[in-house]
């Protein structure tokens, strides 16, 4: 159970980082919103995959 909590913390930190950097990028160059959003979603999905996979393997 503690492991599950750690996994979620890791995922949360990672996603927070991506989101923050994406926001910064969009703020610097608002025309690139589409590309940044796409990249952000891709990385988020990869991270979620990792987190879920770890949760499942733990169970």
């Amino acid at each position, binding site marked *: 159970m503690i492991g599950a909590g750690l996994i979620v913390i890791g995922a949360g930190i990672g996603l927070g980082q991506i989101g923050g950097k994406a926001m910064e990028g969009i703020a610097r160059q608002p025309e690139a919103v589409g590309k940044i959003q796409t990249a952000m979603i891709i990385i988020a*999905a990869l991270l*979620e*995959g*990792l987190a*879920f*996979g770890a*949760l*499942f393997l733990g169970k």
Partner: protein
Amino acid sequence: MKIPKKVFQFLAILCLTFFTVNTFANDSDTSINDGDRVNTDNEVKAYILHHLKDAHDFNLFSYTNDAGERKHVGFPLPIIIWTSNGLTTFMSSEFHHNDDGTVIVEKNGLKFAKIHSKIYELDANASTVSFDATNHATNGQKLLDFSITKSVFGVLLMGLLMLLWFSRLAKQYKTRKIPKGFSRVLEPLVIYVRDEIARPNIGEEHYKRFTGYLLTVFFFIWILNLAGLTPLGFNVTGQIAVTACLAIFTLVIYTASGNKEYWGHILWMPGVPILIRPVLAVIELVGAFLIKPFSLLVRLFANISAGHIIVMSLIAIMFTLKESLGVVGATGLSLVLSLFIMVIELLVAFLQAYIFTMLSALFIGMAVAEHDHEHKHDKKGHEVSDAEDVRGDLI
């Protein structure tokens, strides 16, 4: 009287919104594992696990009617197994919806029992399957199961649907420039996969060879994810066998189409000191054959199964919190939460299909990539560029 288009669109969106919220109204209509009413946590857990597993019949739901009989709404699917006496087929209705190994079916001179969705061939004098400490059956053996299970049926159904839709789309280009009807929805999606996923990742020369596979995988995963969200009870992409198959397809494709540079980069990487190359080769081989398909597999499987578990748990809040919040409170909470989570699951359905397809395209692109040999390698493997180095004296 013509209905104005806006009204029609509004009604359509309203219907779709409520179609995706599959909350059950009252106890007696819910389908339950094998009998009892869903009013404790264990029943909920058993029900959810039963949904995640594959089933040999297509059971929408079951209920107990006033006479105390168990009624099941659904239809049986054929069971095709390879036993020690050869190929045996029979309909799953012979098991009479029994899942704990007590009903024995005799066919072809052998006895079969089904326990927890697995069929065992029993020895001659056994009346049920008994398990030893490590959960292996002691008086039966597992057989090769080729049955049409619920997931296989789902794959066939969605495959047929995809065949109908896309063959119609393709045929329309012979007579018109712009497709008509539902194909209009599919055309931009197809173009999106080709222009945003296939072309950028695979490159202009080779993308045509693989676009067919990428399109198939994209729509296959998306449609099956969406089918898993309906009340019909499909759970195809949440089966590890299905996702393993898809990952193996991608593995075979990008391994078989690897050119010499690809293998060169894996086994004998240029630009790296020679002593490190064997170490890197091992790491790259493990990465190319194990880790990449495994990550594809686990990502899709875990996302979809976890999604199903979350959706069903939130719906089951209606029953588990009935005592503390009252029926209205529990139902209201469950409805709101389920609505939100279903919307998220719709996004996840598309996203997982997109991610799988994009990563497959990426891997294929890496395998067929042709380095334009503009930069040469000098003796030590460093890349020497033609351009003048601005700070040449510092290097």
